């Protein structure tokens, strides 16, 4: 197969990496809401940690997407 189609297939396969990040972010927010319902007063102090965790797991999704872009456009 020629290079252009191989690039397309490679980029498509690389996008599967965002699956893990989706699960991770879902678990994180689910645990936060769960604990927030039990202890609403403490939930406000933990929103900072929530966003830090979200950005760190989202970074893994962005890494996968970045590799896909790299394969597709160079």
């Amino acid at each position, binding site marked *: 197969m020629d290079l252009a189609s191989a690039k397309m297939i490679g980029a498509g396969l690389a996008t599967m990496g965002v699956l893990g990040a989706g699960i991770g972010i879902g678990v994180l927010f689910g645990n936060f809401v769960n604990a927030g319902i039990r202890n609403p007063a403490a939930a406000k102090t933990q929103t900072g940690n929530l966003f830090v965790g979200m950005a760190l797991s989202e*970074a893994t999704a962005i890494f996968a*997407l*970045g590799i896909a872009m790299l394969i597709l*456009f160079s």
Partner: protein
Amino acid sequence: MATESPLHQFELVELIPIKIGGINASFTNASMWMLVAIIGVTVFLTMGMRKHAMVPGRWQSMAEMSYQFIANLVRDNAGSEGMKYFPFIFTLFMFILFCNALGMVPYSFTVTSHLIVTLAMALTVFIGVTIIGFVKHGVKFLHLFSPAGVPIFVMPLLIPIEIISYFVRPISLSVRLFLNMMVGHTMLKVFAGFVVLLGIWGIGPLAFIVMFIGFEFFVALLQAYIFAVLSCLYLNDALHPHH
């Protein structure tokens, strides 16, 4: 219809070509937008505090809130000894925030979407924190790699893992910011191409682009905050290596 690659927006354009010796030290569009960001931060803070009233007006409130936000961040994550490094963390945060936000202006250039820019900042933090650790604790700084309360037979496995994850820090710090900015803007360009391609049905990608631009603003803020938080955490590791 001429289509250009979505990566075309990241190309450097030399505005004022300057050659010193054999080095190309031109004033590029990246330099110009960095200058705009610095002037923006300076104007925001100095003009905001011009009235220095006891009961702050709107602009002074914003300037004071940004100071308070980072001061609390540094104090919570690096302790009161870390407050010595507050000017550095504040400069880092405001510069990255303004660079990211200015990238959202149409037809502008996102400075932090180049790996060399984010790598320079992340290496500054990493090398600075390592030097601070060695100056403060001497050779005992290496105790950072052997956490307390670990049985002795696990150590030969744990110490190489700790050392590798320590050296991955500047890479992950820089690549996280760089990829977030680059991928965000590339996706906007790709979907903009779809809008033109689909003609009347381009209303779908257009709605998605509107939502995604909102998300990009949030990511711009969040990534600046994450860079500052992680820098404070690494500083905390250097100042108190015994956890």
